[in-house]
């Protein structure tokens, strides 16, 4: 059976497949309500790699309109209210408009002219297809003449009488520019000497829609929607030019710009470097934010994507059936299993205590903390004991108090007291610690909803996990979607798939070369550090995976690293930072990406936040040497693990 989750990128789908696999966002009006294709206000759509920008933007292109409406395309466009012209910016090969002995100003002029020709060809080609396949009546000669009239130059060829000829003419002009640029490599002849700019910036991009709106009945009320995808492929100067077009937009033209989160290199325009203003000149939204903030709707969206994929592989399944397919960790069974096993936490504590207390005291302490009926409560005893140890309490007395508290909680289960407080905040941490101490993989991450949560609002991360789940089951020769058998997806195959996806993510987000390695090392160090904290004797916070940083004081090198980690979704910036207790300034909080969290055995929930001070940040993100980082980790371990950096002391019965 072909893996239904094989394809994880919109670019790997044909237009027909994109239409077939389209899943709308389950809110009123769906993505159309978010994108607002007929809105005159230009829009910048941001999103991480894999957030689905391309699929969404292509959905509004003419080629997809054509597939959706088929022979009724004319009525379809009237109903949609827009005519989509989709441009993938990388197709333009924007890298060619730089260097080669020409000034930036010259390149700006050439690029703007080239883009006029390029976008106009795309629009005309869509139009030609529309005319060829419908009964849309256009006086092509008249329209062509009006479009040619938009050119500044005189003496244009007078034999252009159809849209096909016009498109060909624009293509010839484009080829002349391409030829000049390429030929520079053999002749050293200046490109600016060769290229004659025949039309001013914006004249065709705005002008052709105006002509069509005026001359063609069906386009009277239609918006011409230029969809520019992968805007990050434009250089700052090229974006500056297009930002100017956004500012000078004229009806019936609309713009939707799709870019990665780091893709907007500038908001400046060519009008004395003024920036386009959000709210009045354009609106901007971030797909990641939408997906992350509306987690329930996002879960439904991902479930629908899954169901659609499976449907296309002839597997019918409801959303509840789908969720039930994924086994979750069975903590009760695990704790039960531990009852008859050696208690690793007791052994470790004994070993640590033996260095500072007499044997007789040790025996009494261990006896107080041992609670054979319930391993979970016993592990809480250990945590509470370590806390008391850190407070330099009398350890024997402390163990006796913990013993009483444990018995009290076991008998009455009141919602108060030491044990309740630990369970309230650290339940998951305690269970995960038990898994870890007993050399088990932590299975907490398994389960359909957890896998969605781990994807952090990036659908591709979820799809790749599903692809690997499918692969692992294929490897074990298990048909997980066999309708005849109620086979569940094992926790192991989910964890293996998560691990594969994490490896892919780390590699995929990495920049080649030394800089890429540096960034990778930074996030690895941060994850290592948080893992040390989470599984220390006295974790400073519950559910560790979030850090808080006072970004104002950071040097540029570290800010850049943090920006990079955030832009590439290694770190998820949280909406609300928190106020620094001492300095009354607001900090920025970041959560570790779910995939990394699962790999480093961190929490995927967002509860406790670890505050990092400047020195800690420096040692993690910009240590002067690897030894300095090692020392930092050593001192962290000493601080949060018994004997808590205290000097060796021996306590006797009479102390």
């Amino acid at each position: 059976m072909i893996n239904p989750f094989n394809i994880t990128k919109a670019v790997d789908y044909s237009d027909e497949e994109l239409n077939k696999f389209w899943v709308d966002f389950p809110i009123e009006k769906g993505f159309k309500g978010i994108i607002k294709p007929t809105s005159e206000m230009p829009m910048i759509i941001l999103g991480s790699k894999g957030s689905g920008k391309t699929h969404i933007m292509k959905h509004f292109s003419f080629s997809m309109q054509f597939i959706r409406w088929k022979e009724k395309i004319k009525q379809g466009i009237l109903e949609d209210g827009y005519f989509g012209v989709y441009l993938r910016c990388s197709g333009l090969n924007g890298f060619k408009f730089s260097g080669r002995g020409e000034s930036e100003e010259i390149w700006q002029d050439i690029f703007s002219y080239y883009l006029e020709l390029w976008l106009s060809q795309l629009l005309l080609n869509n139009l030609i297809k529309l005319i060829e396949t419908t009964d849309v009546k256009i006086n092509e000669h008249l329209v062509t003449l009006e479009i040619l009239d938009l050119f500044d130059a005189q003496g244009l060829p007078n034999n252009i009488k159809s849209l096909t000829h016009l498109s060909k003419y624009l293509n010839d002009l484009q080829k002349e520019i391409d030829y000049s640029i390429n030929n520079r490599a053999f002749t050293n002849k200046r490109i600016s000497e060769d290229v004659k700019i025949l039309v001013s910036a914006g004249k065709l991009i705005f002008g052709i829609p105006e002509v069509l709106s005026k001359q063609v009945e069906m386009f009277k009320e239609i918006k011409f929607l230029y969809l520019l995808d992968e805007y990050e492929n434009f250089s700052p100067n090229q974006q500056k030019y297009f930002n100017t077009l956004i500012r000078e937009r004229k009806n019936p033209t609309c713009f939707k710009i799709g870019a990665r989160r780091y893709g907007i290199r500038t908001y400046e325009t060519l009008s004395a470097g003024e920036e386009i203003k959000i709210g009045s000149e354009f609106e901007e939204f971030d797909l990641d934010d939408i997906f992350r903030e509306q987690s329930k709707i996002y879960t439904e969206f991902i479930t629908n994507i899954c169901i659609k994929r499976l449907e296309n592989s002839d597997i019918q399944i409801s959303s509840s059936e789908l969720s039930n397919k994924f086994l979750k960790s069975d903590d009760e069974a695990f704790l039960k299993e531990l009852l008859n096993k050696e208690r690793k936490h007791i052994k470790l504590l004994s070993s640590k205590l033996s260095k500072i207390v007499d044997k007789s005291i040790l025996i009494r302490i261990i006896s107080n903390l041992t609670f054979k009926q319930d391993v979970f409560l016993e592990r809480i005893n250990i945590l509470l004991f370590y806390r008391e140890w850190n407070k330099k309490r009398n350890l024997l007395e402390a163990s006796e108090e913990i013993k009483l508290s444990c018995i009290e909680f076991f008998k009455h289960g009141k919602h108060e007291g030491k044990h309740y407080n630990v369970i309230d905040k650290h339940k998951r941490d305690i269970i995960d610690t038990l898994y870890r101490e007993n050399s088990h993989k932590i299975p907490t991450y398994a389960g359909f909803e957890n896998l969605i949560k781990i994807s952090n609002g990036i659908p591709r991360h979820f799809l790749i996990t599903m692809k690997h789940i499918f692969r692992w089951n294929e490897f074990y020769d298990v048909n997980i979607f066999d309708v005849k058998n109620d086979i569940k997806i094992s926790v192991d195959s989910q964890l293996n798939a998560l691990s594969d996806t994490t490896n892919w993510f780390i590699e995929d987000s990495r920049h080649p070369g030394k800089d890429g390695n540096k960034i990778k090392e930074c996030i690895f160090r941060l994850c290592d550090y948080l893992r040390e904290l989470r599984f220390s004797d006295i974790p400073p916070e519950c559910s560790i995976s979030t850090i808080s940083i006072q970004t104002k004081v950071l040097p540029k090198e570290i800010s850049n690293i943090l920006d990079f980690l955030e832009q590439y979704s290694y770190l998820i910036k949280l909406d609300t930072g928190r106020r620094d207790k001492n300095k009354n300034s607001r900090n920025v909080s970041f959560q570790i990406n779910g995939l990394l969290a699962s790999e480093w055995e961190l929490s995927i929930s967002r509860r406790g936040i670890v505050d990092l001070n400047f020195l800690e940040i420096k040692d993690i993100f910009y240590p002067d040497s690897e030894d300095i980082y090692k020392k930092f980790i050593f001192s962290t371990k000493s601080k949060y693990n018994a004997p808590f950096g205290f000097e060796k002391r021996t306590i006797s019965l009479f102390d």
Partner: protein
Amino acid sequence: MDYTIYYKKKYENSEIDSVIEELNFDFFISAYNESERITKVFNKINSLNKHWIILPEYRFSEVEVSHLDDKVFNYTDFSSTDDEGEIILDYFTKNQELFCSEKIGIDITGFLRPHLVYLIRLLKAKNILKVDFIYSEPVNYKKKEDTLFSEDYYEIREVKGCLNSHNPETTNDLLILGSGYDYQMISKIAKFKADTKKVQILGFPPLQADMFQENILKAYQAEEDVSSGQFSLDSEDIILAPANDPFVTAQLISEFVIQEKKKNKLTNIYLCPLSTKAHTLGMTLYFINECIDEPVSIIFPFSKKYSRETSEGISRIWIYKVEL
């Protein structure tokens, strides 16, 4: 066009002396690198004029190249903005007369791929049509599949002189990748031209038996970007071309493209040579013979630095006689 009619000959390492007897050049060029397979051939070959070109990406210091006896064109200190086009064009302009020689030999082994591609494209543009290319195979790469070839990646762009005019329509674009060991660069290119159908050329038969396995290990690491996570040697999108045969490589690319065109109109084609130098030569031959007026370009992920010596020994030497 049938590329397989071109003449090629191989010599085992033990026959290197007979290579010298058979080959007499008027003009011989090689790009300096400390690998034995480059220096040994240069020192032994018989030519009226011998030139070393020293490329800046190898970062040789003056002292390191001071021992070279023959004429040296050292571009180490060329400005960082000077690309393969500036360097090779400068070299060509300074030696234009020698390029009119009857028997020209170019050892492609030490050339960086973009410089080699541009040089061939330039020779074609300047109507220099007959050249013998020499390629020496290594016994092995030093760190097997973990050999590091390029460092400090900085941009993807066209190889100078190889950027043709493209179609605004991109619905059926094709990216043909010569896939070598540098899987990070392969991923980079695949991501850069994400909206293309990707075809990989793998070296088979390889230069050495274990190299194919090493190559596959690396190809797997780029599979998510190159083949939607479905790398398979049985795929129609894999071309297996002998790692040391430029002519078969060119032929297979040509035939593949013809087949693809029969299925559907191709909108644009991008070629990216990241495998052996023989594959690079083959890809370039295909480009200059069939693509000059087509929406086809050669693109490349550029790095600021390349490892100087990645291989050990010489297993055999090839002569490819080419008419451009």
